[in-house]
């Protein structure tokens, strides 16, 4: 049924705003550099063997604030597959094998199958995007990610009309991830977005930080960054993308549904049942810096509020 409907409407044919702007961005950066080889490095994205992406197009929407130190971003992580302490991932994630890497695409799409990391990156243009990052634990950072809009990738898989949600899965290999021995969460870690959220130009498929390849503890080689949602929605080390008609299961929602909803949008007006979400502690700000107010949709309300028009955000936390 779903298949027949898609023959008439082809969602993959719609050009997104982000793809449109991307092309302009590529042209602009190529012109700015004045060199075709430099531009071509940015054009055909690939994992650089030296770990450095080199010159990247600067996304114009980046936040103005000073990014957190590389050390803050890479030593204070929640990545329970490597332990539940904030320092555990940085200590333990060296066992993660990120090359070769492939992603399985399943569910409601025409072009399902297994894609290598190289296949995934190749047609896209990587950008340097400085986003706010807000954890549900009420701390935050400013992070210069490297990536490209997830929607541009998803379109390549030609989602069918039945694809109303996208679910993502993290690698589930206890030989590489010592934390999987403990049933802290239901493994594999999984997360999900509505199709509209996944296609939103802010949703970033991320491969780097500070112009370099993601360190393992940050979710190498491929992770999501959904900047207007609490950090746990931004799933790390993705090995499977699943298009589905029904709202997918998400690990934290499965663990404590009354505390972590499917949406989990950053919202200072809706507290976690056990703590306030009105303010946040900015990492790296020092011992004596005050907490800062949390912004609606983490400061991305202008871009994403329309996605939730008419939705009761207290009920749909």
């Amino acid at each position, binding site marked *: 049924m779903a298949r027949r409907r898609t023959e008439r409407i082809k969602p993959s044919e719609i050009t997104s705003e982000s793809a449109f702007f991307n092309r302009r961005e590529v042209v602009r950066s190529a012109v700015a550099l004045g060199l075709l080889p430099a531009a071509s490095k940015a054009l055909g994205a690939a994992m650089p063997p030296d770990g450095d992406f080199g010159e990247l197009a600067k996304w114009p929407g980046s936040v103005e604030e000073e990014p*957190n*130190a590389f*050390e*803050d971003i890479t*030593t*204070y992580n929640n990545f*329970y597959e490597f332990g*539940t302490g*904030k*320092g555990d991932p940085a200590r333990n994630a060296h066992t993660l094998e990120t090359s070769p890497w492939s992603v399985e695409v399943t569910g409601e799409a025409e072009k399902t199958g297994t894609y290598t990391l190289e296949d995934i990156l190749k047609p896209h243009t990587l950008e340097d995007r400085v986003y706010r990052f807000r954890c549900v*634990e009420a*701390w935050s*950072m400013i992070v210069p990610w490297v990536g490209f809009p997830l929607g541009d990738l998803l379109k390549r898989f030609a989602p069918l009309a039945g694809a109303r949600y996208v679910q993502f899965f993290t690698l589930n290999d206890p030989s590489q991830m010592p934390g999987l021995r*403990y049933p*802290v*969460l239901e493994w594999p870690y999984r997360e999900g977005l509505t199709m509209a959220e996944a296609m939103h130009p802010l949703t970033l498929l991320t491969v780097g930080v500070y112009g370099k390849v993601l360190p393992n503890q940050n979710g190498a080689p491929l992770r999501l960054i959904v900047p207007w949602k609490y950090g746990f929605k931004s799933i790390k080390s993705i090995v499977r993308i699943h298009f589905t008609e029904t709202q997918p299961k998400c690990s*934290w929602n499965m*663990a*404590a549904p009354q505390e972590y909803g499917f949406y989990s949008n950053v919202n200072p007006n809706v*507290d976690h049942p*056990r*703590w*306030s979400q009105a303010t946040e*502690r900015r*990492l*790296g700000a*020092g*011992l*004596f810096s*005050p*907490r800062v107010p949390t912004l609606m949709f983490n400061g991305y309300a202008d871009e994403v509020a329309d996605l939730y028009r008419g939705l009761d955000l207290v009920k749909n936390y």
Partner: protein
Amino acid sequence: MAQHTESVIAAGGHRAARNPVAILKPIVWIACLAPFAIIVAKIAGFGSLGPNPVEEVLHTMGKTSLNILWVTLAVTPLRKLTKWNWLLRLRRLLGLFAFFYLVLHFLTYAALDLRFDWSWLWTDISERPYITVGMLALVLMIPLAVTSTKGWQRRLGRRWTKLHRLVYPIAILGVVHFWWQVKADILQPLIYAVLLALLLGYRLVDWRARERRSRAARRDAAQRRGGQAVGR
């Protein structure tokens, strides 16, 4: 528990050839002050408090308070099992250090997190159960710290022992405070809970054994009295 301690300590102290308390007291001081000294050194720039310094200080103070309180609660079982009665003479010092870290834990939260915004504190106390129980533990511990002196012990007599049994609910509140703010990995609060169950369980078993003994003694005495009456 405590009313018979003075004589026991005196007897134990005389029997011991050397006085272990004299050696142990400075060790307890150093061990208990070490976490505080390390934090102060890190604040002063020797070492790092990491990307989230407020959390680091807050958690260090809170966990150290729990650790020392658990050691304090281990004194009585250890003393009874080993007959090292001199251990009791370290208990007040340990208890006061647990209180010291609890106060620092609260001050870190009040000063660095709330910036002494007392209306915010009230909101937290009334709306966040883990803070409610944490504050309750702090408030309950104040009278124990105040009455920890020999003078108060003498003045309150038997009531002092009763009052200081508050340490049991305080410890339980401490575990609950920890447990209620953990996201998913309950391992650490679970370890504290299991250890506390052992420490309090020992007391329960010991108390029931003493009850049984005293009941038996009363029965024996009554029987003896009865026998005498018949004989007469």
